[in-house]
């Protein structure tokens, strides 16, 4: 029997990845708030409790520190927990467990114990959610050695990356962009496949300028690139980092050495963020190839604003177009 690929949203692709892995690996358990009967507030775990039972898919009391703290114990004692935090903003409640504990178990125990834990959480703005439902936290986790940080931008990647995250022997923060969740469908093979963590994807090749981005800014960058290509005939390369830690330095260096121009685009605030790390990598490795300073298009250095103001916070196609034009100027 040959299985045929069907078109799935990111939500459906993640659901499929979870089901596939739970079928294969009895050690996997899912825990979080409203993930059982309700299937999670975004339905990523829809139907999984009915299929795998309440011992493997369970709702917890509302306590993020409790969810992550006990997940650490589950992981240390041989299970493969996948914890859902209902919105990434609530990971702050569990920060001690994530940053000071999950990320350090291996170091602290000199490798005797480790923590194969996946923490999934929706993040990002653009759909008018209340306070703390839209924040992008990846910059905080970038500053946390011991964690891997994954941010898929497509259904295909979401499935392959989640399976890799589950297989990974160390804690992985898996951030799912809310706006992308249902925004488009893509063919996703029904069989199991993995995408290595730490490997960027070159979405389109080009020779004049590189856009380095990830998450919800991938489609925004693609639209901007399209516009500038039409306008100026420039040849634009787009790199989707997919995993911001480990970061695919090779992909960045290779591309920027070739194009000599780059812009970095993300929704998270600017100061000390992923953009800063990317610019440093360029600075360390391909400074002499650069023809123009690297431009950065990011959220501002303010708290993520109230929903009524988010449209002017989140980078737009026109902001990316402007950065491209400026960086392409001689």
């Amino acid at each position, binding site marked *: 029997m040959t299985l045929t690929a069907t078109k799935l949203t990111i939500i459906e692709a993640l659901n499929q990845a979870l089901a596939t892995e739970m079928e294969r690996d009895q050690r996997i358990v899912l825990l979080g*708030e*409203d993930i*059982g*009967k*309700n*299937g999670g*507030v975004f339905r990523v775990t829809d139907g999984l409790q009915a299929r795998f039972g309440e011992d493997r898919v369970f*709702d917890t*009391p*509302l*306590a*993020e*520190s*409790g969810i992550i703290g006990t997940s650490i114990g589950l992981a240390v004692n041989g299970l493969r927990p996948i914890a859902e935090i209902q919105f990434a*903003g*609530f990971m*702050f*409640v569990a920060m001690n467990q994530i940053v000071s504990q999950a990320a350090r178990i291996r170091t602290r125990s000199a490798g005797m114990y480790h923590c194969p834990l996946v923490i999934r959480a929706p993040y990002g703005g653009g759909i*008018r*959610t*209340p*306070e*703390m*439902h839209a924040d992008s936290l990846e910059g905080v986790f970038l500053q946390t050695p011991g964690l891997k940080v994954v941010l898929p931008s497509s259904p295909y990647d979401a499935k392959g990356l989640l399976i890799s995250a589950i297989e990974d022997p160390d804690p992985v923060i898996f951030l799912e962009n809310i706006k992308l969740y249902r925004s488009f469908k893509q063919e996703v093979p029904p069989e199991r496949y993995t995408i290595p963590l730490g490997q960027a994807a070159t979405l389109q090749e080009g020779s004049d300028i590189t856009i380095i981005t990830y998450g919800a800014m991938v489609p925004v960058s693609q639209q901007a690139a399209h516009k500038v290509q039409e306008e100026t005939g420039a040849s634009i390369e787009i790199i989707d980092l997919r995993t911001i830690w480990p970061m695919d330095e090779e992909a960045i260096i290779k591309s920027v050495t070739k194009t000599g121009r780059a812009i970095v685009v993300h929704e998270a605030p*600017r*100061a000390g963020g992923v953009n800063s790390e990317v610019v440093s990598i360029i600075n360390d490795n391909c400074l002499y190839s650069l023809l123009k300073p690297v431009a950065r298009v990011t959220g*501002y*250095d*303010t*708290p993520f*604003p*109230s*929903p*009524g*103001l988010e*449209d*002017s*916070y989140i980078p737009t196609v*026109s*902001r990316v177009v*402007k950065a491209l034009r400026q960086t392409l100027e001689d």
Partner: protein
Amino acid sequence: MRKDELETPYQIMDPAGKMLGAMPEGLTNQKLLEWYRLMWEIRYYSNKTVALQRQGRSTTWGPLNGQEATAIGMGAVLQPQDWMVGSYRDAGAYMAKGYPMKALFYYTRGFSIAPELVGQDKRCLPYQIVLATQTLHGVGIAMASRIKKENAVTMIGVGDGASSEGDFNEALNFAGVFKAPAVIVLVNNGWAISTPRSHQSAAKYLMHRAVGFGMPGMLVDGNDVLACYSVMKEAVERARHGEGPTLIEAVTYRHGAHTTADDPTRYRDPKEVEYWMQRDPTLRLKNYLVEQGVWDEEKDRQIREEVESYVNEQADIAYNHPTPGPDGMFTNTYEKLTPRMLKQREELRRELNLEAEVK
């Protein structure tokens, strides 16, 4: 009477509106008629916000229908110098404390509060989203009142789901240790999105936790406005007289969805909803007032019409109130913006102008 020894929630009025105990001191029919009207203000405020959300004008929002009696108890027992620190579903309690409805409506538009609509400080901390976090703020506020020797009590609202958070338990502990003049009302509406109360704690009642934190715990029928008032009043008096905090569990029910983004039919038995609809707090007070001969269907129709148009007016004021410009996110991050932020704001303003020119 020690309500913490009760096995069932304390009631003064049964669901049919029949008196089971004495009318709390100081309550007149006049007062009860005011509360009855306030119940409908809260409910229509809730309905109106849902309607506005359906029109794409309000953001995602959590209706509070069914919890009006608890809300009124929480607000009505306070004096102007007292504080209210509630959850997102305690908007009714804010109203009962005197927080203007238009200011609450404005908040539902998806901007920070508009102080000019609040007017004089009402000592109501804007509700926030991260569960249980406000309970610690409330205890801190109460500790400050004690340290400053102010005769102010802090009313703290928190949900049954939120009671599982570490912060809630830390708040109770601090309140106990520092004898904070605080009343913590745990609004047990049966559900935390799809998670039933039974899944939050193996304890029969959440207020049993009070014992472990060295304070009295009380259990009250949260749909009985007289019982809520009586129990909360007693707790506020204790706090005001330096006797420390009290935990009150008010047993009520969330009639509607968790928020406008939720579908409760996925997890809730319609029979359960039906059971609680018969225990609707508005119905109970109405039955009592009718029984007293001070109310009838005609008056009821009239007041509901009146309240509805009042609520619409308040919404109109809020929804026509000026909102911050698109660069508003920079305002109020600090008292004085950092040089970097000033630069970013300039950048944004230039971009917005550019976009306006292009259009």
